[in-house]
């Protein structure tokens, strides 16, 4: 082990951002006046002073290795005076003031296997969670489905020919880490069997009042098993949220046969045109089918296709569906409307149709 610092530092916070800003950014901070997309994945921003900064945006898998970061650093050292940034959707961006550097950077990044794109009316990178790579509650893998879906949709990352922006997100369980609850298309891992209870471990690991209180439907109840305090689950009241498992590790829900994936549509976070809105259930359940989840890929592809073919310019998925109505959406998507599509939790009544505004 290396020698430790003489004084143990704590609560220092992150480095001040000014330490990392390119000189052209410092000189024109807050004074940018316009931007243009020169080609998919290449932006130029112009400041009041006339200064320009070019940004070359490329997809990454979010999970990234030390050797790859060093390769990105090599490109940034060669062309960008060592400046590099990431976007809120896990794209890497190379920043330069020299227009002649744009093509060499693009070629160098693509040579590493990272397509340049993700700007304007495109499908940019998928925001996603850890999955089987690193999470304990994953009902499906994250990186694998993202890889399979993006392989299929790659042409929409490197082009800007869609009606509007399309944001896809994936969460590997109902905790919905990532903005899955507000995405144009959301892929969500789900459990469908109640927790299995290890009474022996539960006795040692879990606080029973907390575990009981964690259940939103009061399905978890205190009980005595072989003279020891434990809990039981009223199975017909369980909606597989896994909140009990979050507070009590002895109640896992993972199930290789019954876990799988659901698909949600029509959410967004931006205020442009329609207000921010939640994603709604489109496909209730698709079994896990690693390594490439072909049924999930084709379901997502189908949703992208019907939206692309029918939406008006700038209409996001949810805006298009709202215009045509949900019954027509289900008809066009070829999805059977089922009991699972009808909400039955806290806000359910706000989702029922309360008018005779129906299209036939």
């Amino acid at each position, binding site marked *: 082990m290396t020698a*430790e*610092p003489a004084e*143990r530092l704590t*609560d220092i*916070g*992150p480095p001040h951002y000014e*330490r*990392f800003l390119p000189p052209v*950014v410092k000189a024109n901070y807050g004074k940018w006046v*316009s*931007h*243009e997309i020169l080609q998919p994945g290449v932006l130029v*921003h112009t400041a009041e002073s006339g200064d320009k900064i070019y940004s070359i945006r490329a*997809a990454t898998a979010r*999970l*990234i*290795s*030390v050797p*790859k970061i*060093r390769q990105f*650093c090599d490109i940034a050292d060669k062309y960008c005076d*060592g400046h590099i*940034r990431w976007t*809120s959707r*896990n794209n890497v961006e190379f*920043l330069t003031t020299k227009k002649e550097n744009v093509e060499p950077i693009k070629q160098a990044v693509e040579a590493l*296997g990272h*397509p340049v794109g993700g700007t304007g009316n495109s499908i940019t990178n998928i925001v996603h969670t850890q*999955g*089987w790579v*690193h999470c*304990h*509650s994953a009902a499906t*893998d994250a*990186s*694998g489905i993202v*890889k*399979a879906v993006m392989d299929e949709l790659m042409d929409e990352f490197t082009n800007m020919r869609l009606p509007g922006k399309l944001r896809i997100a994936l969460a590997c369980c*109902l*905790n*919905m880490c*990532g*903005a899955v609850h*507000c995405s144009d298309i959301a892929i969500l891992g789900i459990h469908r069997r109640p927790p299995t209870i290890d009474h022996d471990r539960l006795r040692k*690991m879990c606080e029973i009042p907390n575990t009981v209180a964690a259940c939103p439907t009061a399905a978890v109840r205190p009980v005595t098993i072989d003279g020891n305090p434990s809990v039981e689950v009223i199975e017909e009241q369980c909606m597989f*949220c896994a*909140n009990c498992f979050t507070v009590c590790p002895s109640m896992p829900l*993972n199930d*290789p046969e019954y876990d799988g994936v659901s698909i949600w549509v029509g*959410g967004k*976070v931006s*205020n*442009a045109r329609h*207000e921010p809105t*939640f994603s709604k259930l489109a496909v209730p359940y698709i079994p*896990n089918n*690693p390594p*490439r989840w072909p049924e999930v890929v084709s379901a997502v592809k189908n949703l992208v296709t019907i939206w692309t073919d029918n939406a008006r310019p700038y209409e996001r998925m949810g805006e298009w569906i709202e215009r045509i109505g949900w019954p027509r959406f289900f008809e066009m998507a070829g999805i059977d409307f089922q009991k699972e599509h009808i909400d039955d*939790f*806290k806000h359910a009544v706000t989702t029922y149709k309360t008018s005779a505004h129906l299209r036939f």
Partner: protein
Amino acid sequence: MADKTKASGKLDELKKGPYPSFVKEIEAAAETNKMAHDLIGQLELSYDEKLCHWKHGGIVGVMGYGGGVIGRYSDVPEKFPNVSHFHTLRVNQPAAWFYKTDALRKICDMWEKRGSSVLNVHGSTGDIVLLGTTTPQLEPVFNELTSLGFDLGGSGSVLRTPSCCVGPARCEWAMYDTLKYAYEMTMRYQDELHRPYFPYKFKFKFAGCPNDCVASVARADMSFIGTWKDDIQIDQDKVRWYAEERKVDIEDVVVERCPTKCMAWDGKELFIDNRNCARCMHCINVLHLALKPGKDRGCTIMLGAKAPILEGAQLSSVLVPFMRMAPPYGEDEATAEDLPELIDNIWELWGEEGKNRERVGEFIQRIGMGNFLDAIGLEPQAEMVAHPRTNPYVFYDLGKDEEEEEDE
């Protein structure tokens, strides 16, 4: 044990195709790193069995902090001993994710030596996520990080690592300095970020305009969304240029798409009824060389967003319709100078009355927005609701008023 430096079987399939392969990334790390090597092995097992192999729980951390490290253990350590411990460290990112390569390279050198050589750039909340190391390495990793000028981010019932959009660093639509606020709020609340005092997690996200590139309205307990009060700036020559040179059908894709129908286009001039503009950004997004937000700028503060756990997902709702974020500050308007007190009042109330694992949005639902506003000392405003109540059961408390009068 089979050589798992290279993926085989099902995972091998995920090395094909045009999108960057996470399997290739782990393989690249595994060439020199035993933990990454066993990560491939365990992941292949998960792919074969359709089952996750990480255990839940295990409280580990660095001295003096109650967050920033997530304990992770394999449930098949006998097969994959190098990932038997595989703890995550969250590292607080620099605002807007700008880096210099020298700093990144030093983090890489440290993580190659002390961890798995695999990381997330970035995690969903915004931190750099160092994926996988052992318990004895946690303190040395922390010490090396702080010597490089980095610190851990949040986990558990703390202020989670604040994040912000690219803001004034490279965007003409930044209505306030998102980087400054992300940094300053992170520094002001270091104690709340590292030590779990709260009922549950609390997130700040700073978005420079209503396009909300950091999803603050969906993902932050307290969302700061840039906006403006005065008229949209119009360059009519540029509007005509869009119509004539770029063949933009302004009637269809701008006027028709306006949510409040506050615009008109006669083929020569674009008219905007600014009193009815909802600041949605659509027209500015489409005609960005011709239209710009107004000059009287600040932000809207919204409160309460969360994912479904536990009572269902919520979006943030308006708390302060307009707060000025930079001087000169006028009289009778909310300004950033009010922020510390506002935040203290919210945290004090929620910290005192909130239930274990109750996010502030659920807390407000339970006690009622009206009561919440009373308790934190804000006046109700019509901007806070989509519409007024429809139910007639109002909790009048006349007795309380009479008591107060008697006291006087």
